[in-house]
């Protein structure tokens, strides 16, 4: 499909084993992976937000559709928002057929992303366990397993003994405060290096002619007679017929610039990471009842994530309350890690929608498109959203895979309820 374009091949050759060794021994500085530009007065497409969604959309616009007069604008830096703050879990074991099909496409794209971008994104499909601590969760797991199987996604309910085999550190004894009755096991799920994904897409898009503008905040969107005319930024004004809002955390505010109101409330979600230790946890472990998910990175750190903070906020400041809670819950699951020390904690912003599904596609303003409402599940969908939104921009039609996620579904009352599978503890 792509990756066969001249510029990509030329540029990506720089990361061959030979060139890495030569640079490493030579001690010379690496050249920038993507260029700096002055803002042009006009672009065919302006994408707001240089996270994985915006960059992937830019990349696929260029790679799949030959649309390269594209500017990606970000008020901060590449991957500085949700794309660099998530817990890097990739999976497709959702609850609705629409959701499962959509996220499965993302897993498929992730599986060949390193080859496509010629950039090591360290995708490790180590398996994903969603624990059930009560009958109700077990029933939901069985439901998800059936929906997933029907869509061709590997997913099954397993008992405590198999859970113990996959993750020996877990306490599966019946005497636990929250006994593990079983789990939804999803072998293709895993973790990835999120920074590498962001940088890989940025580099790939840049090589195909896309301009990435960091430190360029969008301050206004010009709409005339219901049509987008351009954007005003901290670095000058740009005229364009198409603006794609691919922000997370600020999607309500950016959409409001175009006069579009969204069914979104922004909540922070906190995460934390421990010091690195020898690898003992192979799979990703999620517990909805305990509001926690745990994985061990290739460096040996344990990464903890939780549910969103219980009130809306745009603050990315962490809280002691979160650390106390997440530590207590991890110890419930894995009593053996009590001596581990936390290295750091952080927060990202999650745009929560009423049905825990994203919003992709057209808005009442002609030329103003959204790829927003990514709640706690945005990173894993980066490639597929980019691919589908690029197709939408190029063809002017909503691709079938994302037609269920349109903004108009809230008017039509056709919500895509993913609350049971979107994340933990909502």
């Amino acid at each position, binding site marked *: 499909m792509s990756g066969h374009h001249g510029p990509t091949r030329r540029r990506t050759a720089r990361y061959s084993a030979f060139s890495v060794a030569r640079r490493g021994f030579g001690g010379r500085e690496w050249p920038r992976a993507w260029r700096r530009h002055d803002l042009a007065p006009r672009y065919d497409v302006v994408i707001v937000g240089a996270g994985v969604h915006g960059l992937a959309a830019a990349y696929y616009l260029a790679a799949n559709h030959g649309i390269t007069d594209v500017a990606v604008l970000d008020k901060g830096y590449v991957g500085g928002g949700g794309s660099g703050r998530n817990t890097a879990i990739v999976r497709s074991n959702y609850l609705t057929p629409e959701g499962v099909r959509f996220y499965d496409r993302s897993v498929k794209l992730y599986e060949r992303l390193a080859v496509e971008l010629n950039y090591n994104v360290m995708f490790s499909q180590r398996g994903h366990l969603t624990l059930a601590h009560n009958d109700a969760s077990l029933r939901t797991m069985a439901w998800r397993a059936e929906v997933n199987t029907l869509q061709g996604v590997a997913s099954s309910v397993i008992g405590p003994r198999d859970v113990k085999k996959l993750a020996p550190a877990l306490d599966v004894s019946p005497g636990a405060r929250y006994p593990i009755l079983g789990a939804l096991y999803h072998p293709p799920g895993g973790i990835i290096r999120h920074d590498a994904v962001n940088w890989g897409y940025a580099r790939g898009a840049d090589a195909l002619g896309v301009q990435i503008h960091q430190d360029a905040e969008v301050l206004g969107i010009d709409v005339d007679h219901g049509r987008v005319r351009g954007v005003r930024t901290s670095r000058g004004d740009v005229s364009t017929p198409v603006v794609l809002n691919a922000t997370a955390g600020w999607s309500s505010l950016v959409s409001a610039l175009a006069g579009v109101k969204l069914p979104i409330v922004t909540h922070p979600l906190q995460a934390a990471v421990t010091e690195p230790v020898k690898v003992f946890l192979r799979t990703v472990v999620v517990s909805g009842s305990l509001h926690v998910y745990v994985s061990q990175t290739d460096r040996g750190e344990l990464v903890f994530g939780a549910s969103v903070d219980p009130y809306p906020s745009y603050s990315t400041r962490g809280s002691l*309350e979160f650390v106390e809670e997440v530590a207590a819950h991890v110890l419930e699951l894995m009593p053996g890690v009590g001596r581990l020390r936390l290295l750091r904690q952080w927060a990202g912003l999650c745009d929560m929608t*009423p049905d825990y599904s994203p919003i992709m596609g057209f808005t009442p303003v002609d030329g103003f498109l959204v790829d927003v409402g990514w709640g706690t599940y945005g990173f894993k969908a980066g490639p597929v959203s980019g691919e589908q939104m690029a197709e939408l921009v190029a063809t002017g039609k909503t691709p079938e895979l994302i037609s269920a996620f349109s903004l108009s579904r809230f*008017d039509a009352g056709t919500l895509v309820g993913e609350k049971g599978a979107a994340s933990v503890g909502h």
Partner: protein
Amino acid sequence: MIRIPCPHCGPRDSAEFRHTGNPRPRPSVERVTPQDWRRYLYERDNVAGWVTETWYHSFGCRRFVTVSRNTVTNEVATDSADDGPPPPAAGRHRAGSASGSDS
């Protein structure tokens, strides 16, 4: 961590409260169009800045309190409890007002 000035209990940790959201005017059921009703159900201002909102003091006096909070900094205005009864003058609110102020 947010400290909420409860008019009944004094300043308390936000962990004692449940956030119940921003009050929105409910459209008249007789006259509303389906579009406007869905707008009321789903659309949110999602303000970045100062908001007036309701918190329920579930692990305290179990009353609803009105709070002004900046959603960007999580700063809480300390004189925000206009709507509630005056701060406790040593246990005055123990009797009588339970249903009246739980609006």
